């Protein structure tokens, strides 16, 4: 299958002006917004703290429930001598 080459519509008139290789440069300008980095840092730090507190609180609540269940079971067993959970 042959395909005819489209006529060039590019605005680059001089092919020799294109990059033919990429070369590392020292001290390239840092363009990332300081404000976005600052907000991201604060969000991540507070996110970590709140996630840790929330997970600890949820686990503590589950453990407290389990303790009261076990204490009830033991107390019931002590009362009638045959209680099973």
């Amino acid at each position, binding site marked *: 299958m042959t395909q005819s080459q489209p006529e060039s519509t590019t605005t680059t008139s001089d092919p020799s002006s294109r990059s033919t290789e990429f070369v590392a440069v020292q001290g390239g300008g840092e363009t990332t917004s300081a404000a976005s980095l*600052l907000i991201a840092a604060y969000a991540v730090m507070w996110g970590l703290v709140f996630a840790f507190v929330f997970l600890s609180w949820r686990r503590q609540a589950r453990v407290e429930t389990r303790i009261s269940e076990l204490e009830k079971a033991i107390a019931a067993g002590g009362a009638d001598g045959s209680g099973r959970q």
Partner: protein
Amino acid sequence: MTGTKDKLFYGLLALTAAIFVYLIGYIFLATPLAQLQAGGLAQKIFYFHVPAAYAMYLCGAVCCISSGLYLYSPTDTRDAAARAGADCAVVFGAMVLASGPLWAKKAWGVYWTWDPRLTTTLLSVLVFVSVVMLRAFAGNGEAERKFASALGVLGVVTLPIIHYAVVMWGGNHPTVITKTGGGLRHPAMTHALMVGFLAMTLLAGLLVWCRTRLTLSLSRVARLEEQAIATGQID
């Protein structure tokens, strides 16, 4: 918790929250921008980043001391405090390792480089992660507790190395608040950092307290389950 402990806990919690609100307001409204080489606006990460690193040291010290005491004379409270110290050291270490690269992107142009302080901080956090993983997945027997305690004592050895890494091996990290550094050249910057240290100390104390209480509750569940199984109340 008992009534007095409850009051103390919630009082400290309210005080910590108030100090953090004040600190955030102060950082954004009163502290001046630093020079562009230090990150400009992104330098304001410093007021949480450095105190979080300090809080990691504190929690690591709690883990080390409690682990040492546990190895000397085992009790549930010492084991719980050691475990809580390691848990909190990981959280504060994660805060440091997350906030540092975001600041570094602006100040150094890269998120991560194998700078001596970054590398030693990562290693230290990984030691505490190993303590947490060991306690979470290797059971709660006496041998596991003692092995984790030994690891907790060893973990704290890495903390002075982090601190002196900049002095010993150089690297990209600023030496602003070391003996050879020029210090913070504005009173508002110094004030914000000092308040940051206070706030993070209180936060570290509260988190260690909560985690110690949780671990003690878990030990109590284990004992009650043994009792209930022994008396035939549960299978």
